[in-house]
């Protein structure tokens, strides 16, 4: 376990704690975005190799010896697309929250009890 993966793990747990304990819908969405950041940190920390540099070949990297000089490019590529999806999904959730507010004039999750049993 590396330092950054610990940070990411703690962020995931804190965000989950916030999602479960808070009753304001916008606070729940903020907790979701904290979980998002934590997961991204965790994934990027998997690909890091100590002492190596970014997988972009320019003057400071020999092309033939790149295998011994660069880090894993695949986690970066995965996280890159995940961040954009995270923004779009956050926007969609906020729009749902606005619609719920227009329905009941409240943002408290305990006021929406149609599906409660």
């Amino acid at each position, binding site marked *: 376990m590396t330092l950054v993966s610990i940070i990411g793990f703690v962020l995931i747990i804190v965000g989950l704690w916030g999602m479960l304990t808070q009753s304001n819908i916008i606070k729940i969405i903020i907790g979701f975005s904290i979980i998002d950041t934590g997961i991204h940190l965790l994934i990027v920390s998997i690909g890091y190799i100590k002492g190596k*540099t*970014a997988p*972009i070949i*320019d003057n*400071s990297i020999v092309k033939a010896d790149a295998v011994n000089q660069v880090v894993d490019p695949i986690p970066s590529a995965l996280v890159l697309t995940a961040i954009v999806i995270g923004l779009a999904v956050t926007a969609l959730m906020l729009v749902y929250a606005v619609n719920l507010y227009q329905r009941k004039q409240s943002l408290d999750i305990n006021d929406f009890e149609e599906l409660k049993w």
Partner: protein
Amino acid sequence: MADILYNTSAVIALIAIVLAGYRSLKGPNVADRVVALDVMTIISISLIVYVAALAQRIIYLDVAMVYALISFIGVIAIARYLERGL
């Protein structure tokens, strides 16, 4: 010699970012937090340039340019929200 220079600058930037972070967490007013966020943005740009110098990659400077060109938009949005213009 260069090591001492690098380490000193990193320590200075870290102290500055911790102080600004303290203000952004504690600040009694929203305006305090917004100004602290702006200060943290500027210090982050200098930290990014520090990382680029440490890794000796000139291409990292593109990230600092994006930061400097884009990140003030969040502060402007908060200001517009506070004056009821959003």
